């Protein structure tokens, strides 16, 4: 995209480790298909992950494996969205070596909403505003030290955000 030296060298190493883990756990077709997307993710827009319908498929496409819930991931989202078109959602974590953070809304037409790359020196805190089609779980994935951690919260939506 640019000729700038990016700050993702460390991330790349973790990715390679991650890719190895996938082959070991034997996710079969998906791992062949998805691992390269993941490895290239620092340079390339993860088109396939954004096309997946379900949160699980999007996470698989993006990272090639599943996440474990962690109370070190703090997800801040409203109980009831004032309007599904604009739902302020933020995340922070005490985990170290965070390399990326992803936001998903389980019942959206495509679950994956946003992925943020966190190079070394950038804090693992992100706030953004997302659309939600209806009441569902917001899932946030924090990639840290090559592992995936998640937090989930249900947000009630009475006016859907698909009109946005």
């Amino acid at each position, binding site marked *: 995209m640019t000729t700038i030296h990016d700050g993702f060298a460390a991330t790349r190493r973790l990715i390679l480790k991650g890719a190895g883990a996938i082959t070991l756990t034997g996710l079969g077709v998906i791992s062949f298909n998805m691992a390269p997307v993941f490895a290239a993710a620092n340079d390339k827009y993860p088109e396939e992950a954004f096309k997946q319908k379900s949160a699980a498929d999007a996470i698989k496409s993006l990272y090639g494996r599943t996440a474990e819930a962690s109370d070190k991931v703090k997800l801040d989202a409203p109980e009831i969205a004032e309007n599904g078109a604009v739902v302020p959602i933020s995340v922070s974590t005490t985990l170290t070596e965070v390399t990326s953070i992803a936001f998903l809304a389980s019942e959206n037409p495509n679950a994956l909403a946003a992925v*943020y790359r966190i190079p070394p020196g*950038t804090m693992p805190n992100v706030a953004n*505003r997302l659309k939600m089609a209806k009441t569902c779980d917001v899932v946030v994935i924090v990639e840290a030290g090559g592992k995936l951690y998640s937090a989930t919260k249900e947000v009630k939506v009475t006016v859907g955000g698909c009109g946005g």
Partner: protein
Amino acid sequence: MASTIRVRAISSGEITEVQVLIQHPMDSGFVKDAKGEIIPPHFIQRLTFEYDGRNVFVADWGTAVSKDPYVKFSFRGGNKGDDLKISWADNKGETDATTAKIQ
């Protein structure tokens, strides 16, 4: 025309907090217009923040990011008066960029 990008980058000495608001429809492709025709998807895919020759934050977005999108993050370093370069590109190949001074 004025930039589509509004930035607030404030340094507290050790940490620079960055907030950005971008004027963009972020059409999802799931919405119909008044005539009942689908409004084709039109959304920012990548938003990049560059400081001191390196990326400090990269956002990859799908259609579920709200209209006139907003994001906030912070990074270590950054001095008052330094440049922060922000650029975006959408699925139609449109782009915009701006350079903001850290305050």
